[in-house]
């Protein structure tokens, strides 16, 4: 293999879900693709590297720091919704029901994969909950919106232990039946959880 191809394969193979084999396949695909298309891909990567960064407040991906969400005066600065990934911010925000701010952890605790608290953006979150410089109002509530998986639950429990002593209200998103889902096809673990988390009417 010639050098540029080998270098590209090396880089592609470092991406999650891509190995040597897929990397090679992608590289040769790009060799055959129209030159313009490959140049545009390269430019998109350059723009990503040069223009996209993590917001210094909420750690979401952004071009401007702080990001548009963190500076939006119509959003309640006293409520922070904590999520695992930038994609989760998109998913929650698309509904338009949540009008507070976000915080992106970028990972969930997982001792099995060697991911500990230092690998999550927890220090930045605690910074936001601290006394601050008096210019921003104190945070009233933190909503933990990590997945109901083993890792998501552990992360939520860990954060709750750190945050509660600060006197900030900590809440957990409810898990349960999908709206419009057929009860008949819902697994029993989900039904059990939905029953445990039932609300009085």
């Amino acid at each position, binding site marked *: 293999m010639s050098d540029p191809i080998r270098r590209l394969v090396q880089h592609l193979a470092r991406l999650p879900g891509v190995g040597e084999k897929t990397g090679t396949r992608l590289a040769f695909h790009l060799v055959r693709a129209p030159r313009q298309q490959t140049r545009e891909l390269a430019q998109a990567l350059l723009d990503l590297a040069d223009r996209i960064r993590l917001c210094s407040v909420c750690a979401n991906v952004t071009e401007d720091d702080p990001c548009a969400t963190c500076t939006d005066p119509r959003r309640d600065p006293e409520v922070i919704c904590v999520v695992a990934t930038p994609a989760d911010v998109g998913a929650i925000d698309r509904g338009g029901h949540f009008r507070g701010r976000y915080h992106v952890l970028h990972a969930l605790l997982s*001792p*099995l994969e060697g991911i*500990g*608290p230092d690998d999550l953006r927890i220090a930045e979150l605690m910074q936001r909950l601290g006394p601050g410089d008096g210019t921003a109002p104190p945070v009233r509530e933190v909503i933990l919106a990590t997945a109901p998986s083993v890792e998501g639950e552990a992360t939520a429990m*860990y954060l709750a*232990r750190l945050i509660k002593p600060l006197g900030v209200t900590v809440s957990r998103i409810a898990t349960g039946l999908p709206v419009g889902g057929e009860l008949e096809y819902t697994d029993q673990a989900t039904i*059990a959880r939905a029953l445990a988390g039932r609300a009085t009417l």
Partner: protein
Amino acid sequence: MRILALRVRDVRNLEPLELEPAPRFNVFHGDNGQGKTNLLETIYVVAALRSFRTSKLADLLRFDTQVAHIGARVERGGLERVYELTIEPRSRRARIDGKVVRPLARYFGEFNVVLFAPEDLQLPRGAPADRRRFLDRAVFNRRGDFMPLAQDLDRVLRSRNALLREIGDGRKPLRTAGTLLDVYDEQFAQLAATVTSARLAYLDELRPRFAAAFEAIARMGIAVDLRYVGPDEVVAAGPEARAAALQARLVATRPQDIARGATSVGPHRDDVVFEFGGRDGGAFASQGQLRALVLAWKTAELDLLTEIHGEPPILLLDDVSSELDPQRNRYLFDFLAQRRSQCFITTTHPRHVLVADERVDHEVREGKII
């Protein structure tokens, strides 16, 4: 419930198979190594999405093939459903009525298959791990939410152990990792309590039926029981207090757990003892009595499931007759004749299978069902 049609492609040594099983007794006979157990495994796997012989479903792939398929059309309470499983070297896909099921937990609860294998007969005297698996298989059929719970528990256990090792070998100081370990203690205690409670509740349901069945089989007037063995205060606590009891225990064993890099209490260490006249049957009962104990459990398990679900489960009986004396074998088939379960029975000698009516025989030879 019963299987109306079974379709198998590239599973172990089985030739492509389309079978419309009879509603009651399906007997498969043949020499050793022909594929009889493989056929029962196929049925078990399409119902439970796991095997009783291996922890890796990929082992079921016929040598040198990349994809296996099992499909079963099942009738239950007048309703028909098609369960399908596709196995590939690194993945599996489950469908109900053609729709991919995600999460997999959704697959469980409606398709109940009980396995009775010759290895089971040694259980009271065997390893605790085998008894735990045996118990958990029974609980899983009883309640469809058990498997995902047990899987989550296993993941939390491995997470906690990984953290214990990080602390133990100094990669993480306890001073900073203490809160993290508290979290895994709490998460483990909650799930472990739920799993323990499910096992205990199951044994409570099974116990009277087990004792009655044993008396019917052995007619000895000896009291038998099933005793769950775990930390006393955890077993004695009610379901509400069980998590707290476990958590207290984890705190007490923490130094030891850190030194060993393993969690020393929990469902993965518990056991169930077959008691015989107030003693551990594994240590004191004769071979024949041991077999009667297991036979009593299995018949009780079938009756319990029938009562709970309102439908008799499907029974897979793998060459058990060769391990039972004529009298116990007679008991087993009289019992089955009086129930309504669809049975898949393997044997080396068809005459071991003591049923005459509603019976269809097949020979299994080199993976072919004839």
